[in-house]
């Protein structure tokens, strides 16, 4: 196992990481320790430095400034010489030239590239026109927008109800907000549950105080409309008739990998970027880690996603090792099924981030 080391005659190795989440930052840390002379650059469309998105629900319990969510101070990046280019968008990767193209028409050259862009909220096509009436929950800014829009003891209508949404839901219930869950096939995503388990845990949610509407029985959601005077700000309309009002409507239909910019790069993509257990793509200079990649499973003979903070962090570490000449393989560190905690409330290993 050899790391790249620059000598006076060899220019420092250029590592570029697209994505500023758990995988990307874990990889940056690993790259810096394994190659002290290398140039490490993180590119992100976020304005903020890396912060713990698992803490976002806590914003509703107490006021937390984004500075309190940051995993590292600004000094950390300076001290470790990790350059973070923020608030920019990657439009393409030119694998032939080994360049990442940014939306402002600047190329960033790499020797080794890690794609760790994660996923973004999935929104069913029929709700695309209602996007402006929905509140997402992927960033600090979005979380604060929900907080601002939600009155004291207000009502949140959750569409879908993946585990990201349910994490928020339990917090909202604890501060006496009303949560209305409109179920969907993605409820409990990324857990894959049997009908029996699904029924069991929907009852758990009801016991916790959540209003559960069977989305399938209602024919699914067809539209979101502004609420009328005297009623909450949003109206959710069902295909079979009927509706439900909420101050905020939030889609939680799981994540889709953010890979559009990789189209045309020559990298194999199915739904996510396809990698081996060493996280290397079909291009020797490109790796992928986190929610954006599908990792080959020898057991299942298929590429599959692995979610959860601990899995993603482990991928970042493996990627850093292999980008610097190592030969490590990702092994799942976090798996599990839905469970109940000591209070009988729903719990999941995906909510663990320590």
């Amino acid at each position, binding site marked *: 196992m050899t790391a790249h080391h620059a000598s006076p005659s060899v220019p420092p190795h250029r590592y570029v990481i697209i994505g500023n989440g758990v995988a990307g930052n874990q990889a940056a840390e690993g790259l810096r320790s394994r190659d002290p002379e290398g140039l490490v650059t993180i590119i992100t469309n976020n304005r903020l430095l890396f912060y713990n998105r698992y803490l976002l629900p806590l914003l509703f319990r107490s006021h937390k400034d984004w500075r309190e969510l940051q995993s590292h101070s600004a*000094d950390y990046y300076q001290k470790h010489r990790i350059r*973070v*280019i923020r608030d*920019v968008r990657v439009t393409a990767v030119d694998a032939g030239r080994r360049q990442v193209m940014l939306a402002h*028409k*600047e190329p960033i050259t790499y020797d080794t590239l890690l794609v760790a862009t994660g996923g973004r909220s999935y929104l069913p096509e029929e709700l695309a026109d209602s996007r402006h009436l929905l509140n997402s929950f992927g960033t600090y*800014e979005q979380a604060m927008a929900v907080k601002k829009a939600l009155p004291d003891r207000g009502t949140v209508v959750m569409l879908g109800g993946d585990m990201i949404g349910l994490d928020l839901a339990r917090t909202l219930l604890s501060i006496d907000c009303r949560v209305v869950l409109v179920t969907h096939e993605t409820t409990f995503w990324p857990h894959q549950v049997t009908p029996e388990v699904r029924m069991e845990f929907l009852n758990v949610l009801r016991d916790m105080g959540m209003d559960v509407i069977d989305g399938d029985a209602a024919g699914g959601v067809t539209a979101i409309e502004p609420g009328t005077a005297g009623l909450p700000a949003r109206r959710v309309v069902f295909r079979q008739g009927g509706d439900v009002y909420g101050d905020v409507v939030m889609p939680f239909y799981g994540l889709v990998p953010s890979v559009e910019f990789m189209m045309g790069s020559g990298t194999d993509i199915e739904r996510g970027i396809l990698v081996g257990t060493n996280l290397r793509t079909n291009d020797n200079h490109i790796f992928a880690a986190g929610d954006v990649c599908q990792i080959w499973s020898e057991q299942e003979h298929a590429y599959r996603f692995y979610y959860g903070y601990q899995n993603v962090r482990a991928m970042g570490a493996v990627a850093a090792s292999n980008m610097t000449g190592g030969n490590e393989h990702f092994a799942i560190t976090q798996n599990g099924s839905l469970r109940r905690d000591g209070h009988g409330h729903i719990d999941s290993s995906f909510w663990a981030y320590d």
Partner: protein
Amino acid sequence: MKATDIQIALCGSAGDGTIAAGDILRNAVARAGYRVISFDVYPPEIRGFGKCISRVRITTEQSYALKRQSDVFVSLDDSHAIPHVGEVRPDGAVIFESQPVATVAEGHHISGHIHPGHIPYGIPLRELSEKSTGGGRSRNLVVLGYIAGLLGLAAEHFLSIIEKKFTKQGSEVVSRNQAGFHAGFQAGAATFKLDNVFFTPLGAPHGSEQVVMLSGNAAVAQGCMDAHLDTFFGYPITPATSIMERLAVALPKRGARLLQTEDEISAMAASIGAGFAGARAATATSGPGLALMSEMIGLATMAEVPCVVFVSQRGGPSTGMPTKTEQSDLNAALYGSPGDSQHIVIAPTNVEGCYRCAGKAFEMAERYQTPVIVLLDLYLSNRYETVTLAVSGPPFNLNANKPRPRLEAGEVYKRYALTDDGISPRAIPGDAGCMHVITGLEHNELGRPSDQEEMHAAMSRKRHDKLLGALQHPDFTVSKRFGDPGRVKVGLLSWGSTFGECLEAMFMAQAEGIPCAAMKVVMLAPFPVQPVADFMADCDVVLVPECNYEGQFAHLVQGILAKPVVRLSRVPGSPMPVEAILGEVRRLARGAVTAIAS
């Protein structure tokens, strides 16, 4: 509620509208009632692609200097802005173009240079400009709108200032620029604000005063007008030119006159001629022009003719750095003229001081019958501040001449009569019975040439002693002490534009618990010996910050008072950073007085 204190820096290339945007910003926030101090940096070339920076500090209460680090930094041209991107405070905002029209070479976009501790705001300025105005030229208005929307400033004042600025170019241009501002405003208002910078509402202004936005040179011109200037003679030179430009517009409206002469020698000579004829006269120049005027200033001293010279200093010597600020013409102003050429030299410390010193300079010139040099510098001439003017009218005495006694029949008028206070009754050509001559030669009381030893000594003493009265000139602050009373560890002794930075440094030092005081010296000749001596006696150590290499003011103080001072002499071509002064104050407060002081 926390008071507003926000500094915004706009950086671009000549042609980007950077300075214009800064001008609209400072006028809009001033109209909203905020206090403003602002300074523009631009290239020496008249046309081209040089760097322009407009810095605007907006406060609830009066501030005295620009901050070293801005709260918001805008790049309209990354090649110029990248070297300055570090001039933003922690968690401050950097706003940049996210959709440039052309391909950017690797490493040449500002996004890759933003400090991790700053917050980037990539905005499609050109795209917003094109969509809202049909062209990309209104990026500067778009970014102004973005800032206003982001920070919660009302749009109305911006829109009215934009209308005023572009109204001569037609309603279409006004509408287009307002549309650009609107597009930016909506984008800014829709942007989540990550920083805790905000504008606090303002109370109602005092009815007894009016607050106006002026540059130093504009304040000088206003002071001249309010002092009823009759004639102005000048030759253009950076950074003094805008005094003449403003007066060229204002004077004829009042039936007064302005003449652009062929050079500075003529301008000075014409001012003396006008003064001799009884007109209130002035000229304005910079260091190289002052050098040309020095012989004529000697003539005015010898002939005791009132005249006022505004000198805006720039980097020197010679042509030097025309668009960079410096305080290195002090020696030339004090001693530049041959012989014992005593005259008055005053130096305002802020824009309001420019107004007062301009008006008072005419009072002094007429009262003491001498040239008065008002020493500005580029930083003061070009910086903008909100200035409070009394509604009751200009605070100037428009007839400061010593009354001429009635002559008895057969009595001879002595233009240079030796009096107790050294000031002779002044008559002007045409006054009945007061015919006299003036000359550059030494003369007797009648004005006739005389080289007798006793007369030369008496006249030299007269020309010297009469100026001492200026140290008690009515309603004029010759020097002033600020900060802690009594004994202090560190005293800041300063003059001219650097005093604002000294005052800010003093406040910061006091906040750190350092016993500290500051004194501004406005009258540099004659020198206010006693107040400065008293101040220095109260200080464990005296620090003299000034923007020249030699420490010219420190030399002056040490030469007159024979007491040690610590020098902080710098020639950065830009204002002395507050932090540089504060750092020295801290060092001195720790007792680190070195051999410099001895």
